[in-house]
């Protein structure tokens, strides 16, 4: 699936919910089901510090594809992080660098991306795209 197809799927998942409680319960469930990042990757280097919650992001190349693993100490942020990983992980660096992420806004969760200081989400997204650019540049060099 392309990045946009995954985004559209998430948007239609969320269309099932007609109140904030079921929406957030779903995000909390996503957070609970998201596999935790192995302790060895929870390094100072991989941490994206928000004012309130911490987010860890690990990136690696798997063949042609750039993959992400992530974690957070707050459960709602963890659920949101799982969605960003679901959308962006496993695509080429170029696709990730060029991705236009519209699903958060369409789901009505864009405020979580705007509060740059209160959670690490916006910084994490920026970092994911930066990895895309970096690995793209690397493959061109090779």
């Amino acid at each position, binding site marked *: 699936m392309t990045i946009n197809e995954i985004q559209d799927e998430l948007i239609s998942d969320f269309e099932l919910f007609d109140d904030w*409680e079921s929406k*957030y319960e779903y995000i909390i469930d996503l957070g609970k089901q998201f596999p935790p990042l192995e302790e060895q990757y929870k390094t100072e280097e991989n941490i994206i510090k928000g004012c*309130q*919650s911490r987010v860890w992001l690990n990136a690696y190349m798997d063949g042609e594809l750039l993959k992400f693993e992530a974690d957070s*100490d*707050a*459960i709602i942020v963890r659920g949101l992080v799982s969605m960003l990983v679901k959308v962006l992980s496993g695509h080429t660096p170029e696709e990730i660098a060029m991705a236009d992420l519209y699903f958060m806004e369409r789901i009505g969760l864009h405020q979580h991306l705007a509060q740059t200081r*209160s*959670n690490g989400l916006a910084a994490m997204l920026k970092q994911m795209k930066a990895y895309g650019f970096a690995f793209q540049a690397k493959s061109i060099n090779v």
Partner: protein
Amino acid sequence: MSNTLDINSIRNDFPILNEVVNGRPLVYFDNAATTQKPRLVLDALSGYYEHYNANIHRGIHHLAEKATSAFEQSRKRLQAFLNAEFSEEIIFTYGTTDGINLVASSYGRAFLKAGDEVIISTMEHHSNIVPWQMLCEEKGCILKVIPINDDGEILMDEYEKLLTERTKFVSVVHVSNSLGTINPIKEIIEKAHAVGAKVLIDGAQASSHLEIDVQDLNCDFYTLSLHKIYGPTGMGILYGKRDLLNAMPPYRGGGEMIKEVTFEKTTYNELPYKFEAGTPNIADVVAAKYALDYVDNLGKTNIAAYENELLKYATEAVSEIAGLRIIGKAKNKVSVLSFVIDGVHHQDIGVLLDQQGIAVRTGHHCTQPLMNRFNITGTSRASFAVYNTIEEIDKLVVGLHKVKKMLG
């Protein structure tokens, strides 16, 4: 309620309380971060811009005179609010942080030297830590920290042990923003003076709740922010004893603070202008007077009595919630309720309360060393002001039960 205040009528003075957040009437419990503004403060702000906006002190036209007069009236109003002896002891600043930086930078650089000791407490806001760390780094001074007990109270006997002839400055918070603790500052000041140290009190959180009499306290410096006293953002004051302020070098250079400038030498203006370089925040200073009038009209004693009832009610109500632990159980507190819930991240609490229209603050509240003292990364904090109600606290309790259920 045994109080004399008409809370419904007070609520009508604050237009923002009619806001609807996520489909619910706003419950605003983030008053320790900033209080909302009554209509008369908003009117004073627009009134200034509509009728007498002008730069102050230098102009000879009508508007400049009117603006200057209103600006200086605010200084006198703040003098009365703190019971300062002289109006020139009131220096306008951008806020509490700015006032602390002024003292650390001006007094600290001029009068502290290598080996001198500065004492702060464990419960200081970063604003009352970092300026002293910067000074200590620059001058080779030593920063000492007064420990606290598990209830969040300063250990006075430990404080006394830290006081020596090397102690040159003590800077402590009047009321803790994270815990609500009211510190025994009069005693702290007396003991510091006994070893010849000067004292600054960070009054950011105290000024909307407690009567402040700087002459009775005998503090050397007192700083506060007006936006926490129902006034505008971006302005505060530094009170300093006149002799000390006179002895201190200017902090910033520019217009207003000079007497005469040549390229060879500049002579500085007198107090308070020496410390007010550049065009000040005239509109907000002018409007500040109206915020203080509002507070004094209600009466701080009445406000404190009512807020204490809210705090007592809220403390008992949230204590019923399983797994909830209150952080900060000092005997003397203002209306700040900080808590953690076992196994729940404070940010999740904040996000889910916000969905229910309830504004609390979550995080470390810019007091990371204090959070470390309690072995936590942050708290959820509900802080109450005079316009809050018991019904709103009931909504918070219902909201917290919902949060627990959703995250459980």
